[in-house]
């Protein structure tokens, strides 16, 4: 596919800067980010290409695809970037922009709903059984009491994330599998 580059869409890069990727203009496409990325070998998440696409304003090539959600946020690129361009920060910014367009993967939605309804990223009932089995003290974190969960719900209700993460009032966890934590 031939890409016509004229009249770069600066809206995207400006938004990335606004949403936390403020050092993107420092990027000189050396490839250090892609070079140490744990994901690049097995998926089509190519961080260097993404950085370049943002600078060229090729938003439809980034935001409509799932690749930005494949970053493990290991921060290796950010740590080693010789220009301090902050590739991981750019990924976070792109995720925020993408979420505003309503594009967000199921795993994120599920974790967020778990946190909203259970106080934790994972289901609580199974945890209580396991605690009992190994003789751990009675659970007293957020998941132990409705009043703690209520605090967390009120925080989320007051932020954009309620809408962006598609929080549902009637939520049933899919299962006890741990899908995301950090």
């Amino acid at each position: 596919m031939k890409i016509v580059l004229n009249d770069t869409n600066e809206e995207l890069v400006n938004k990335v800067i606004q949403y936390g990727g403020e050092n993107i203009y420092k990027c000189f496409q050396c490839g250090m980010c892609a070079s140490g990325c744990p994901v690049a070998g097995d998926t089509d998440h190519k961080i260097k290409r993404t950085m370049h696409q943002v600078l060229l304003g090729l938003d439809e090539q980034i935001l409509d695809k799932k690749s930005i959600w494949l970053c493990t946020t290991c921060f290796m690129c950010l740590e080693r970037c010789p220009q301090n361009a902050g590739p991981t920060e750019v990924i976070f910014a792109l995720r925020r922009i993408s979420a505003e367009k309503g594009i967000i993967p199921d795993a994120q939605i599920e974790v967020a709903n778990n946190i909203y309804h259970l106080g934790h990223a994972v289901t609580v009932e199974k945890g209580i059984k396991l605690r009992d089995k190994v003789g751990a003290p009675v659970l007293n974190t957020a998941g132990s009491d409705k009043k703690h969960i209520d605090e967390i719900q009120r925080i989320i209700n007051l932020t954009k994330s309620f809408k962006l993460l598609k929080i549902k009032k009637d939520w049933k966890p899919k299962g006890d599998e741990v899908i995301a934590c950090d």
Partner: protein
Amino acid sequence: MKLLPATDYALYTGCIIPLRYPDIENSIRETMPLLGANVFDMVGAGCCPPGGAFWSVDEISGLAQSARNLSIAELMNKDLMAVCNGCFCYLKNSNLLLKSNQEKREKVNTILNQIGRKYHGTISVYHLVEILHDQIGIEKIKESTKIKLDGAKAAVHYGCHLLRPSDHLMAENPEKPHKLDALVEALGMESVYYPKKLSCCGAGGGMRGNNPNATLKILEKKLMNIKYSDPDCIVTCCPFCFLQFDLGQKGLRDKGEDFCIPVFYYNQLLGLSMGLPKKRIASISETPRDGFIKKFYGVD
């Protein structure tokens, strides 16, 4: 190195440790006081929250939830001990950001005000490894253990969010960390070299949920590198990495691959070396470790 006095901490357990690996929680609760670091419960503490979800859509929402957790420790007037790399990274980052950025602090406090809380910025966030290495010290750990793991080879996995971004996480050389290795060697084990030691386990950022195939492929590469030195076990200080190694190896075995390296959270080995009972501190895992425990601790 001059050691700082170990003291009382607010123990922030997160989600995975209390709800999937409570044996790790027991190992922390029971070993740390023996080393002079008393831990106190953070009643009502919620998810940190994770970078993969809340931070990925809205910074303020991530900050506000972190600030709620920090405010619980502030009311206890104790520094926070994080026992999960993800929790450490996001809580420490939030704490630093909220301390330095007035605008964000005010935004967050407006939200917290609605639930009768306030963030003050009066405490610090530490990772368990920092407390063990910098405050308790290698010598004290050596003295406290009864059983030495002579001849055992450990593959140490630091995990990403303990080290990076290095400018605001643990005080370490991010390319040549040594603290967890030193802690492992304090138990008498050899911390072996393996290639790409600092690379990711493949779990974080939503990856484990979003792309189960890729997450296993990344793990497989990591394990291939670990196998380079044929270790007796993997030692980590992050429950999510622990889970990835534990369940991920099972996932790979289900696909017919041969990966069965015992995985331990550091304090589980520390506790076993102190003579604490296996059932309470190291009994939950999908990848069997009884062989290791039998061989090196002589416990069934």
